[in-house]
């Protein structure tokens, strides 16, 4: 004990370093979590492989399907994983501890955003490469590439806001169950299933979901079309979800 110089000398690290170190810590923990890897990579890779093997027989076209799977992966990272990890951070008192450090609450949220971005980029790259290896050949236009970039960023923001709303109010166990259920609903609601496959009466509602906006945008991108309307949908969702998260999030369980 005598080896420690315990004389007070507190000083915060520079802000950028705090944010990046927090992002790195969360990224390492996500990468180490088997359940999250299952959602982020194993299931999407399995779907791409399944399409490559049996897609033609089942009438599932490769070009839109791989784009849909990438959208599904981003959904799992932006919503499901973030909700579950944050709920358990509340449960385990991680947030309570971090409040009493130089890490400000905005630093923590920016660190989480950086983690989600890093994981999403890596995930999209891996899934796209797997798709290409399986014969996927998207034909994107420059205009839709710009739209897709905006929609991906805004949908990740919207998903993250929704994740924080759920994780910031519900217990860890409830969040775990609901986040997985909502993951499946999102997959069915516009991510894997195109809006055109729904009954005509349901299509206007389904089109307004952020999951649909992301799925349709990436499918349009892969197919060479242009559609900027989803940008408005995800922008509204992002603003509303983040505002709600800011209002309702609780730091302790």
């Amino acid at each position: 004990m005598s080896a420690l110089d315990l004389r007070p000398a507190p000083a915060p690290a520079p802000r950028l370093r705090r944010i990046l170190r927090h992002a790195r810590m969360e990224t390492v923990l996500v990468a180490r979590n088997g359940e999250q890897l299952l959602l982020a990579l194993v299931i999407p890779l399995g779907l791409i492989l399944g399409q490559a093997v049996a897609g033609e027989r089942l009438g599932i076209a490769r070009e839109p399907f791989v784009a849909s799977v990438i959208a599904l992966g981003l959904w799992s990272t932006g919503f499901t994983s973030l909700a579950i990890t944050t709920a358990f951070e509340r449960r385990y008192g991680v947030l309570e501890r971090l409040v009493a450090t130089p890490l400000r609450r905005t630093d923590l949220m920016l660190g989480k955003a950086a983690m989600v971005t890093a994981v999403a980029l890596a995930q999209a790259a891996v899934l796209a490469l797997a798709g290409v290896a399986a014969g996927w050949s998207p034909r994107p236009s420059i205009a839709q590439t710009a739209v897709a970039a905006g929609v991906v960023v805004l949908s990740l923001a919207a998903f993250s806001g929704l994740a924080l709303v759920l994780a910031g109010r519900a217990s860890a166990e409830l969040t775990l169950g609901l986040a997985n259920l909502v993951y499946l609903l999102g997959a069915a609601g516009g991510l894997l299933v195109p809006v055109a496959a729904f009954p005509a009466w349901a299509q206007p509602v389904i089109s307004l979901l952020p999951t649909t906006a992301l799925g349709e945008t990436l499918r349009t991108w892969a197919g060479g079309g242009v559609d900027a309307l989803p940008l408005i949908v995800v922008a509204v969702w992002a603003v509303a979800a983040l505002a709600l998260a800011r209002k309702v999030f609780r730091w302790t369980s």
Partner: protein
Amino acid sequence: MPAALSLTDVRLRLGGRAVLDGLGLVAAPAEVTAVLGPNGAGKTTMIRCCTGLLTPDSGRVEVLGAPPGSASANSRVGLMPQATGAWSGVRPRELLAYLASLHATPLPVADVVDALGIGPFAGTPYRRLSGGQQQLVNLAGAIIGRPELVFLDEPTAGLDPHARREVWTLVRALRDAGVAVLLTTHAMDEAEQLADHVVLIDAGRGVADGSVAELTAGGSLEQLFLELTRPGSAA
């Protein structure tokens, strides 16, 4: 010397119940202040008010001369939470390295690991540590930023007598180095051994305040505790 921590007539209701009901206390630099009270007396809530996690309905809290939860206050304090306080999959060495990285001039992680005997389990995921091992990691996390004020919420709960004595030695070393230590405990012997100043609280308000010698002039600290507090009074 100005107080490291002061609470004046702090009141907070949660769920319709008065959890803090006019609480006041002062903790000085280079002193150990022990806050004693039965379960539910408001000890952890008081610490949450000091870190800005909860905002009192009324009253005044000042942490190192700054408002609780401010950047100035929170970058100069250390907190050892009562339970868990870490990601389940994190390893102690990487948790401490992460916490150290938030500070400009932290204690060397290796030295803290050695001093607290964390080395043998420094690479074990936090969820696989025993309660006592988790406590030591939490304590290490509280001091790694070289704080001026540390909050230790029941720091020796679940520790064996050897580890308990080690923690006591560390608390004394912190005080001797000039750190203001505020610890909550149910252990009367711990308060008697460590505290320069004892605050006894019950149902969210102070019922006795003084040095150990002052409070034990008419009997033991435990006798005083039993006389002035009600079992599960605020639970």
